[in-house]
């Protein structure tokens, strides 16, 4: 990567903050500067309903001062980048740090920083000047396509297009300093369908680092329309225990919930149900889960993490065996392990553990094939509510879906819950489909769980 003038300007601001922290008495410091520019438009029917443009900057300064038996830490953040404001905030950070307790584990990484910064295709320079009008046109096309599909689609929450550009600079008192630019574009359509007294909504979306990576706008609208139409006439079903199939929209949430229980913080705080399971079988042998921060053009990619460590490919679960926690520098030290390059950080907070591009390896068979293999069961197309307890693995969420009889979808289902324990659910995955589509930073193919309790009438 080559450095641009704006990046040099950002690096000089970070340099100033690091100097100010040092002058104020910090023995270690690191600074993150995020500059972003966002455009967002929404079209509902034929009307432009909303247009938003914004520029934002956020500077986060972490200072560590020597205390008795460890370092004392504080974090301050501001959007005021005037030199005197930076000096003042750095001073406040040091004063705040002195009021906290020394922590023998605290500190910023001393080495291992990213040296080679690969070009990860995080933005397309040609997209930089995308006009509001062009994105309004995308939203219009999605909205029109959704409404053309069927006369029962006569209303919507609108179709929304967004384009965001960010520049990130990170530097620390060990001499690491680097920057990268990224972009993220999206298109989202949410039509409503009506049949008699029944009204339903559903959505479809696409997101990518470049405009050319987005699904065609009309296709987004049409797929949203198809999803909402098939929800019309939804029924409740009696309480039962059946095989449950998650589609490519709902399966990623299971992967995200499992992986949140692999965070080093959840492990040393004993708040993960997987705390004692490293190296053991925690899932069916069909399950392989990977987090990789260096996939070219992917939405979760970045050349270095929130502490300047190189991102990498982390094998988390292979054929059901738990291979690794996800760690930043601090949680790694707590567990006596090196960072996995998984520090995630925003300008307003300290580092914590996050995923990059997280997915479950695909298996065989399309969603239709997986449906055809089920004699009596449920396909889950949307989940609502937060019913997951990471400490115990207990899982119970509201669901919307399609009822399957003899390998065919027979009717939509609503006002039901599905419940189990996430650990048992992963052990009971007995089918993994072949379709892996990225719509965000986490992706999973369709998954079948052999049996779950479905609560209904």
């Amino acid at each position, binding site marked *: 990567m080559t450095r641009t003038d704006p990046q040099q300007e950002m690096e000089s601001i970070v340099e100033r903050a690091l100097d100010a922290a040092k002058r104020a008495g910090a023995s270690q410091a690191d600074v993150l500067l995020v500059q972003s520019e966002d455009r967002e438009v929404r079209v*509902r029917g034929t009307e432009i309903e909303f247009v938003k443009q*914004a520029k934002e900057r956020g500077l986060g300064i972490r200072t560590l001062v020597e205390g008795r038996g460890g370092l004392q830490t504080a974090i*301050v953040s501001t959007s005021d980048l005037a030199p005197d404001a930076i000096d003042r905030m750095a001073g406040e950070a040091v004063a*705040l740090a002195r009021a906290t307790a020394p922590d023998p584990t605290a500190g910023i990484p001393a080495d291992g920083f990213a040296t080679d910064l690969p070009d990860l295709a995080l933005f397309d320079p040609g997209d930089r000047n995308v006009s509001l009008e062009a994105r309004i046109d995308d939203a219009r096309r999605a909205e029109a396509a959704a409404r053309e599909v069927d006369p029962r689609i006569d209303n919507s929450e609108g179709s929304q297009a967004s384009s965001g550009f960010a520049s990130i600079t990170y530097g620390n008192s060990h001499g690491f300093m680097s920057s990268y630019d990224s972009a993220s574009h999206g298109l989202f359509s949410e039509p409503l369908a009506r049949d008699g007294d029944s009204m339903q909504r559903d959505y479809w979306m696409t997101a990518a680092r470049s405009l050319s990576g987005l699904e065609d706008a009309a296709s987004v609208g049409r797929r949203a329309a198809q999803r909402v139409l098939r929800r019309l006439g939804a029924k409740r079903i009696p309480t039962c225990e059946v095989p449950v199939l998650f589609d490519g929209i709902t399966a990623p949430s299971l992967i995200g919930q499992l992986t949140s229980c692999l965070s080093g913080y959840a492990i040393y705080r004993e708040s993960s149900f997987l705390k004692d399971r490293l190296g053991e079988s925690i899932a069916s042998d069909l399950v392989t889960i990977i987090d990789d921060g260096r996939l070219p053009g992917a939405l979760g990619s970045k050349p270095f993490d929130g502490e300047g460590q190189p991102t990498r490919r982390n094998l988390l679960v292979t054929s059901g065996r738990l291979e690794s926690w996800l760690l930043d520098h601090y949680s790694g030290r707590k567990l006596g392990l090196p960072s996995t390059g998984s520090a995630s950080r925003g300008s307003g907070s*300290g580092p914590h553990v996050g995923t990059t591009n997280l997915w479950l390896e695909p298996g065989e068979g399309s969603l239709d094939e997986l449906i055809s293999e089920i004699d009596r069961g449920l396909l889950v197309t949307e989940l609502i509510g937060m*019913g997951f307890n990471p400490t115990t693995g207990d899982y119970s969420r*509201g669901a919307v879906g399609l009822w399957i009889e003899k390998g065919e979808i027979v009717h939509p289902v609503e*006002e039901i819950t599905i*419940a189990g324990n996430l650990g048992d659910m992963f052990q009971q995955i007995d089918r993994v489909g072949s379709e892996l589509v990225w719509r965000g930073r986490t992706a999973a193919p369709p998954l079948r769980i052999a049996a779950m309790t479905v*609560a209904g009438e």
Partner: protein
Amino acid sequence: MSESNDSQPSAAERGLAFFQDRFDLDDRSLATALDTALEREIDYADLYFEYTTTDSVALEEGIVKSGDRHLEQGVGVRAVKGERQGYAHSDDLSVDGAKIAAGTARAIANEPSTQAPVAIASQTPSHDLYPVELAPTDVPVATKVAWLGEIDAYARAKDSRITQVMASIVCQQKHILIAASDGTRVADILPLVRINVQVLASDGTKREIGYQGAGGRFELGVLQDPARWQALVDEAVRVALLNLDAEPCPAGTMDVVLGPGWPGILLHEAIGHGLEGDFNRKKTSAFSGRLGQRVASEGVTVIDDGTLPGRRGSLNVDDEGTPTQRNVLIENGILVGYMQDRLNAKLMGVAPTGNGRRESYAHVPLPRMTNTFMLAGQDDPEEILKSVDNGLYAVSFAGGQVDITSGKFVFSASEAYRIENGRIGAPVKGATLIGNGPDVLTRVSRIGHDLALDEGVGTCGKDGQGVPVGVGLPTIRIDALTVGGTQG
């Protein structure tokens, strides 16, 4: 707390002085900025200036490992024409907001304007609901650090099975200034405090979490009273230990009794969101077009009230400068009102209700709830429990969600018990309740006399914006609600 405080000027007066002294935002500069937006033919423009300091200190493993201070400042500029809104924001808190205002208006309107220049009119707010002598962000960090240490020691001494304690104190002081093309000019200073206590109980084989928090718009000193914070810790410890012994939750349809206070989240999810003006103006809510119809049992009255002194969901004025008020949503079972911001009120031909809220200057206002609760009834809570043969008693909840259009809502219990022959039975874990918003309150068959408001920890999410809210409920019985557990 009282509504008037003679010892200092009102929050509105202090807020105006703050922006004028620090950022030179006087009436003339505000009018100039608004005039720039009005160069195009639009209906309305407003400016929202914000300067917010948020401090937090957090303890784990017996020590306060970090202190955080977050300063957020900026201006949001909005131009409105019909259903169209143009919005722009900048972290440059000055009258230069005028420059982006022009661009915002251009995005939604092409016609040059014929409107007269803006005349800023001073507005006297009707409330001063959260006067504080000492801003929570001015409480010394050392005081908070020492207090967290006491919480940790107290929690660990309660029971040897408590193996982890996480506690935090979050203090915020938010200054806002709102100016609009109709002449509105109003400021406010909003304090907000919150304390969180989470403990982990372990009996060697099982581990469970217990959480309790409290907060509101008042001085931090209110929570520093040992009787108050020790009760919170007691509660967190009790719930964690209780859940160690909890059984799997039954699944299926059964009669449910909700305890007083925080279970009011039911009203928020099942009813509240569906009565927000935007969804009803667009006819995307399951409650659209149902004003005047029965949506709840007789005796059920639901209120949204932004004027309760010191409450987490209260506001002197909403984020568009409209004074908050007490809004009756459901009166004796009949739907009588929606919650409105200015845009949706105008398009629906009704008055704004003081519910236009936004997370920050970086967000557009939306119709949102404040403090939402059901009025007390006549029934004795003990008698309500005795009236159920077999069912579920849900006392506390972790959170919920609703699909506005289908009306289906869900919420997850963090403390619940079986009811067996009118008696509270074994604790159960992982209970999720699911139902249909327009229908669920018609199944309310008993209403207790014990209305309670929650402890002040609620945050509501909508369109990616989080705002502090309150809820409240008396003990109620709901007939035939679906409970999602694992025991079929």
